[in-house]
């Protein structure tokens, strides 16, 4: 029983990271119908900015994080406004390929600036310190931070979308661009705002990943693939689905590793992608897209 709870908690912690990334992917997809393969690279670049600010420029950790998140916001918003908004005219393939092009450019850039070796970036929390919870379950300080951050972001986002004027505009755009525009919403501006928010979420996930995995240009690639699986599992057009999908994927992964075979833990995500897309392409909570002739 203790082992079960421990696995559940570990899965929940891994899943929180996937959920943070997946929410970014889903927000972007809902608002502008772009599946952003560069999402992980955006996050990686922002994490490198935090590293640069803290280690090279010598800012305090919190100030470095603030700089990185501001950078992430501007990066996301500007990239959408300058590149993706134009690319959308070229159709679905063009959009996917532009985001892949961004992935290549960003990974190359960070490799050229900071080198391709893995750098340690330990910050706010002590990875080795362990908290004992009732029931004999252990939680590392790091995992506690991840879970707490993810929960905070989820609640904040939910409130933001529910109650603020901008949040309502965002939902309007994701439902129907033309109608939103007719109601006086500046669609392009709202979309770049969403891109900014999504990139900030990615940057947070990146900063949380860094202490465990270290910094290198491809650091966010595998988490991004997992986040895609999470988004597909929950439904690519459902924010709640992405969060639940992330947690579910994390738990399934850890359980598969613990009870079936650790070697296959990494492959579970892709099995899930294939299964979900074959059986229920719209995901657990997504709405099926209806094609009109």
């Amino acid at each position: 029983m203790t082992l079960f709870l421990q696995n559940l908690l570990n899965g929940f912690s891994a899943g929180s990271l996937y959920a943070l990334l997946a929410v970014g992917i889903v927000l972007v997809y809902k608002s502008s119908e772009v599946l952003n393969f560069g999402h992980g690279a955006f996050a990686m670049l922002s994490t490198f900015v935090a590293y640069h600010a803290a280690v090279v420029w010598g800012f305090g950790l919190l100030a470095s994080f603030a700089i990185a998140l501001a950078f992430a916001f501007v990066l996301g918003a500007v990239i959408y406004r300058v590149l993706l908004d134009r690319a959308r005219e070229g159709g679905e393939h063009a959009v996917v390929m532009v985001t892949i092009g961004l992935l290549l450019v960003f990974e190359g850039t960070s490799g050229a600036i900071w080198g391709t070796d893995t750098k340690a970036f330990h910050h706010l929390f002590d990875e080795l310190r362990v908290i004992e919870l009732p029931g004999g379950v252990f939680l590392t300080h790091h995992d506690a931070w991840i879970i707490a951050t993810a929960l905070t972001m989820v609640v904040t986002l939910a409130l933001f979308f529910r109650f603020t004027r901008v949040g309502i505009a965002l939902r309007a755009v994701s439902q129907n661009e033309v109608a939103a525009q007719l109601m006086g919403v500046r669609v392009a501006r709202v979309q770049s705002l969403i891109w900014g928010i999504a990139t900030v979420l990615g940057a947070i996930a990146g900063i949380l990943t860094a202490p465990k995995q270290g910094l290198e240009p491809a650091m966010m690639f595998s988490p991004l693939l997992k986040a895609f699986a999470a988004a597909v599992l929950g439904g690519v057009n459902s924010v709640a689905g992405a969060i639940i999908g992330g947690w579910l994927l994390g738990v399934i992964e850890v359980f598969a590793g613990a009870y079936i075979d650790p070697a296959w833990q990494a492959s579970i995500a892709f099995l899930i992608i294939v299964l979900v897309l074959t059986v229920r392409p719209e995901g657990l909570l997504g709405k099926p897209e209806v094609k009109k002739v």
Partner: protein
Amino acid sequence: MNNDELKREYREDLTLFEGPWSRGLALFFVVALIVYSQFFAGNYVVFVMISIVLFVIAAVGLNLLVGYTGQISLGHAAFMAIGAYTHVILYSKGAPLLVTVPAGALMAAILGFVVGIPALRLKGPYLAIATLGFQVATDQILGRWDSLTGGRMGLGVPGPEIGSYSLAEPRTYFLLCFAVCLLVLVGAYNLTRSRIGRAFVAIRDNETAAEAMGVGLTTYKTMAFAISAFVTGLAGALFAHLSDRINPSTFNLFLSIEMLVMVLVGGLASILGSVLGATFLIMLQQGFAGASEYQWIIVGTILIAVLLFEPMGMRGRWLRMKYYFKAWPF
């Protein structure tokens, strides 16, 4: 309007080459490449030429799917891997090369057909994720199935031989690859002008309308995946002999992306475009062999620039130049 733009006979519509010049030009290129590779080029240059020829084949295969049928695939390196592994496993067991290379391609085609089935329900970004999943899954399976594939260590590749005639010399191996490449080019070009090719294009332009006109989506979409995988698997099987060992990491996601870049930069739905795109990208990689970070920056930038400013790719440029000079004084 120029008289020779008007086709008067059915035979003119069937011909491979339009106008008196293109036939001569094509013949000149074929002869020049063979002569150059046999008598003038050093081993390294021949090696690069083989890579170009093989990636032309792979890019043509991918273009049949992406450019003509309008289905995206991030998993084509996996088809290359399947072609290569099938070929090497059978060939190591002593089957003749002329059987195992097509067998590799056939195996890739079968898996292409299987991947094509879920693709019937998926569009655009979903298909991209599904094929990405296929790519990663193939990598994992090849890396884990130690008894058959040698796991992460990979398999040793025996030197190519047809009968007792060795092709281990790059010069002679180039001839084989080049011959296959020409076959694929002619075959693909003819395919795109056939009933099947027109069905592909119809699906790309409007699925619903195509279905209403009697194009069976199930048949033609899975067929597109199978044919595309067959051609790419063929390139993969021949590609195996470029190094002493094959292992799963050779055929990673970035290879898939590179092939897509070849197709897009060369020009969608164009055989000539794939030739240009593959040649361009391989040359670029050889130029930046030591500095892979800069290579990625340049490839990514070119990809984005082409998508935003010249969606027809290099072929579009070429056509525009051609028409400019055709109508020159005006």
